[in-house]
């Protein structure tokens, strides 16, 4: 997941110049490859959760192939049993908004145009952004981005197939505790952000409170979208440093809108 992605990318970005790593693959490529393999296995959890929620295995796979962003995928799947599909779709897309922020920061590094930009866009996730933004130079960033995209895309999709087919054969989801997979996944995704600052924790508590309070009175899915009001309150209360100050801080993924909450397609 992204927290690990971020930690690893940060750590690896620091020792990216380590000569030992260059024997087989360049540092960023190797880091991306390993990270993709590690995080991609989370597709098992998504495949299982999606089928448990009522999506078909083919639909679960379509989401991993086409949406390719974990948190949004989990969010849509969780909306299926309640029947709030429109609100669920809106919430899932809203969650994908952070990928636009990554794209803004990656554009300068990747410098891709035409058809290759269309492909590169699909590869933007918490993980590929974390690896690319942790690199000291554009060439290393491109190499890290490509490697993460390739290995994570393959692993995430294969794991989704296995998880979806496996869960379909299990029988009652509650017996295996699969109804806790969704909440546990969301908690794991938000976890690193909760350590980012008091504003993050405040927004999380307020968001959860708003959603719970609204659940009995609003249609399924809508309370979750309403919770974004908490983010608005947080942004207005503590807007954070100005853009100039932030960009001077460094190239790490934590600067500006760095990869944090992830739902990579791990969580993506």
């Amino acid at each position, binding site marked *: 997941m992204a927290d690990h992605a971020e930690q690893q990318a940060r750590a690896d970005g620091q020792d990216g110049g380590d000569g030992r790593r260059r024997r087989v693959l360049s540092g960023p490529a190797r880091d991306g490859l390993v990270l993709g393999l590690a995080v991609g296995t*989370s597709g*098992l*959890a998504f495949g299982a959760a999606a089928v448990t929620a009522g999506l078909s295995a083919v*639909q679960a796979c379509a*989401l991993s192939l*086409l*949406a390719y962003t974990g948190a949004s995928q989990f969010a849509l799947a969780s909306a*299926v049993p*309640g029947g709030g599909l429109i609100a669920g*779709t809106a919430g*899932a897309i*809203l*969650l*994908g*908004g*952070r*990928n*636009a*922020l*990554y*794209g*803004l*920061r990656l*554009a300068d590094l990747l410098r891709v145009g035409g058809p290759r*930009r269309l492909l590169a*866009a699909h590869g*933007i996730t918490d993980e590929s952004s974390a690896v690319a933004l942790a690199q000291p130079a554009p060439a290393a960033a491109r190499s890290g981005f490509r490697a993460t995209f390739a290995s994570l895309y393959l692993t995430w999709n294969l794991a989704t197939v296995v998880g979806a087919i496996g869960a379909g054969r299990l029988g009652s989801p509650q017996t295996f*505790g699969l109804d*806790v*997979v*969704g*909440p*546990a996944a*969301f*908690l*794991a995704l*938000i976890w690193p*952000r909760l350590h980012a600052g008091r504003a*993050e924790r405040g927004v*999380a508590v*307020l*968001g*959860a409170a708003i*959603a*719970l309070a609204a*659940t009995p009175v609003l249609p399924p899915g809508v*309370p*979750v*979208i*309403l*919770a*974004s009001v908490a*983010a608005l309150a*947080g*942004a207005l209360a503590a*807007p*954070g*440093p*100005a*853009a100039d100050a932030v960009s001077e801080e460094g190239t790490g993924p934590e600067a500006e809108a760095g990869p944090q909450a992830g739902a990579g397609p791990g969580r993506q």
Partner: protein
Amino acid sequence: MTGTWAAVLATAAGCYALKLAGLTAPRRVLDDRRARRFAELVPVALLAALTAVQTAGFGQSLSADPARLAGLGAAVIALLLRAPFLAVIVAAAGTAAALRALGVA
């Protein structure tokens, strides 16, 4: 089923459009710090809301299911121990499943 497919494809299209928009848009969009902060905080609010609603929610009613709460507690412990994502999930599901199997919850 058709509705579900529409939701799946709309989600895929929307998520891709956002990725492409970021890669294509002028970088000065990031200059407004309130807008940037809001964009950073939206996932925090939504993920917290999803965690809460899926733990305590049964359709439109709220209730505290002991197995789910214990499963989430196990996830917290796993996260505090810095366990990898999949281990967190397995701990949560395993705890809920074990409590149900034992008839405790």
